[in-house]
């Protein structure tokens, strides 16, 4: 069994308690229009090209045998003198990845840190992450999820982590479907499981201008969280205009469909109203 990941980032300081390593799992069932990690959407390896420094030497295309449509074969990677091309998406067995992560056990232990599985969407590779989480037992394990997966998978994942960071983008079902491509019914169902699980969790809301930064959406979100003792806090992540930076690198267009220049409404009164601790990052 293999999983596919698109990055491993040591020294993550915003992904859970202590200093951590975050694993970015490749592939996601949602298609949020504001996604800033577009290379994390598909489940297969992809060519990623940075044009910063390209000398237009043409060496890459001289090498390419599939000029019409890139098949991500990677043949052009090594010919680029500027090291601008790479294949994102590396396959690992749970054993291989666990071994790599466990090398830094001493550092997690010294700092009350651990490992966070993020993505993409980690629960979209359920067998792999559960096998991996089992191998990481003894280390603080966190998962960062959009909550979109079958309830039994979600429950199993909960059983194997110590800390959860879950996204809640929109409470209105229609709106959710419009902006992310999927209904939020499973997500809300999984939220209930999470609340009952007793696991400490954080709710993260990417605040998108004009989409979900309204008082209404915030108050609806807050309303769902009043009865959760295990909720640590709500974290608001205001939209940043650099979100589109990586689309061109994987040969895609960024079409957010909302006004990216509009100021984000970071008002937190809706959460205050319910006495829910909230942070703006």
């Amino acid at each position: 069994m293999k999983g596919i990941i698109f990055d491993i980032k040591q020294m993550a300081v915003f992904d859970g308690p202590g200093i951590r390593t975050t694993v970015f799992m490749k592939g996601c069932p949602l298609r949020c229009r504001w996604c800033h990690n577009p290379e994390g959407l598909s489940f297969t390896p992809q060519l990623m090209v940075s044009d910063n420094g390209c000398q237009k030497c043409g060496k890459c295309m001289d090498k390419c045998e599939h000029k019409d449509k890139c098949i991500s074969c990677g043949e052009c990677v090594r010919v680029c003198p500027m090291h601008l091309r790479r294949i994102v998406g590396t396959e690992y067995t749970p054993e291989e990845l666990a071994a790599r992560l466990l090398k830094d056990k001493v550092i997690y232990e010294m700092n009350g840190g651990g490992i966070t599985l993020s993505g993409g969407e980690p629960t979209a590779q359920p067998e792999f992450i559960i096998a991996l989480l089992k191998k990481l037992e003894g280390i603080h394990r966190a998962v960062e999820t959009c909550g979109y997966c079958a309830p039994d998978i979600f429950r199993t994942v909960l059983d194997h982590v110590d800390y959860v960071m879950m996204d809640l983008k929109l409470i209105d079902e229609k709106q959710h479907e419009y902006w992310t491509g999927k209904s939020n019914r499973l997500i809300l169902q999984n939220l209930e499981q999470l609340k009952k699980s007793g696991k400490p969790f954080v709710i993260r809301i990417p605040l998108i201008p004009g989409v979900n930064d309204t008082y209404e959406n915030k108050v609806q979100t807050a309303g769902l969280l009043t009865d959760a003792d295990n909720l640590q806090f709500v974290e608001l992540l205001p939209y940043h205009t650099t979100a589109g930076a990586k689309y061109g690198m994987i040969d895609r267009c960024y079409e957010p469909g909302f006004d990216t220049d509009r100021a984000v409404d970071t008002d937190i009164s809706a959460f205050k109203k319910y006495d829910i601790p909230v942070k703006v990052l």
Partner: protein
Amino acid sequence: MTDRIQKMYDYYVKDKAHHEFRQPETDKYRYAVKYKEQGLCDTDRAVYRLRDVLNEEKPVVFPDEKIVLLRTVRTLPEIFTEDEFKEISSKHYIHEQGKVCNICPDYTNLLKYGFAAKKAEIENKAEEFAKAGKKEEAGYEQALISTIETVQHFMERYAQEAEKSGNDYAAVTLRKLINDAPETLAEALQYLRIIHYCLWCSFNYHNGLGRFDQYMYPYFEKDMKEGRIDKDSALELIEEFFLSLNKDSDLYTGMQQGDNGQSMMLGGLNRDGSESFNELSDICLQASLELKLIDPKINLRVNKKTPLSEYIRGTELTKVGIGFPQYSNDDVVFEALRRWGYDEDDIYDYTVAACWEFIIPGYGTDIVNVNGMSFPKCVIASINKLEQFDDFDALMEDVRCEIFKESDRLRETAANVYMEPSPMMSLVMNGCVENGRDVSKGCKYNNYGFHGTGIATAVDSLASVRKYVFEDKKLTKEEMLTAVRNDFRGNDELLNELRYEGPKFGNDDDRTDEIAVKLLDWFADALEGHKNDVGGVYRAGTGSAMYYIWQSENEQATPDGRRKGEQFAANYSPSIFTRLDGPFSIIKSFSKPHLERVSNGGPLTIELSDTMFRNGEAVEKTAAFVKTFIDLGGHQMQINAVNLETLKDAKLHPENHRNLIVRVWGWSGYFVELDECYQNQIMKRMQLII
């Protein structure tokens, strides 16, 4: 920052308005010719130089200053004519400019006693020596007395100017300090400013400030107890002193602007195991945090027991983006100093000389940067013989021999050193007054330190040969040799693979890191057991100073995919070609070598994106990261908070970024004032950060 400090900041730092008082540049041999005609010996010339420079100085005092003195003389004079110096150079090894430099005085030699008492002590000594028929020593004591009188005379002139400009406070302070020792913090700071200023005017450069929070503490404590100051007014005084260090630092000699050696060490373990970090240390951090100036350069001594809170204070300073503090690990440095024969009494007092080389204030006349040993040079020499070796071990054995050969060669060059005398410096170095002997002839410790340059290039190159030639056999020995000798021309794919995918020191891969452990051990072995011609030992280090540029300029391509002439990484740092696994793997790899054997000085430098300092929680985690390196046994570390976009913009529009500070090797400097090669190196490294 109070309004008064803000005003001074604007005047001196922002507008540099005080430059209007500066005198035109003059001939640096303006006195040497006269001294020669008069047939003066070198010590007398040094005394005269200080006298002549201070006489040229035109006192400038502003009404609301508490700490005065401003340099107006631009060109410090030489004491020898060009021909005379050539003659000396032909007979001696001249280190840098041939001056006493890059050491740290023990300022308490004057702070505690004051000039009158010091003079009396010296007069007694002179008499003693005269009675014992020791003419030379007796004569030297006279030089020290003249020096004190010169400084006293200069202070009197400044006091008069202070009166004239309506600054009675300064006039009273200066008049008192002409004879008496300082009693308050304000007086002690003014006195330190005078000493430090006169050292520069004696052409001593890179004069460390040492353990400022320790030797200034008694004055702070007394003032606090007696209600003369509170924390706020102490902070204001310290800020004024820090500002004074930036008034004329651009006139100080150094390789680059900012490289002026005004380093300060805070905290550290006492001999009884207690921690010396005190309230004043904290005020110093606060002052640096508010002023955001490149001087003084702040160093923090830490150890396994240092609480996270101290690292957090340090990290708050890092966040400001000025490249301090630099941390050094007492646990490792003590051990290193012990190994090199430093007395147990002295090691607890260590500081950095100017950048990062460890030294004992007042006792160390070590030449801590006497030369640089290039690891890549040794590796290249061995690799050029690659065809002779049957296996990797044989290659490594040859590298060992090359390191020994190169270390021997460097040792031999550094003999029969000549330095210009400095009676002024001798007043603040222990033993000079007692023995009637100038600091240039050496004090208690006279060890020589060598930088170790390009360790990552060397390790990566060897690991690459092991992998591609001996293990995977992807290349024959001949193919590898041809590729590097042709500078990888026509071999883009190989270059790419070696450069970006080859094994790298810093990925926490034991097999690669083990090569680093060996190379550093061999460097230490090669120097161990040898004595220099002044009785000192040799110290191996991990610094690079300028050597990483000088020594790479003409060096052929290397099997790590470095092309001819490309720079090595600076100091104790990983390759700048590729993104490594991350900060964890870097600190793990870089703490594996036996650093207590190579602790001449030279920090692991890590750049972190400024987003890692975004909020209090992130700052705390970054602080924990620094602590982790220290707890793993790292010797010295320096963290930069950087933003590549800002630097790019600064290169294009320097006019908008005059105050952008970056850390270069041992010091921080203004980015727009740096040579382009440094700018590029800094930016290159930044592209790899997380």
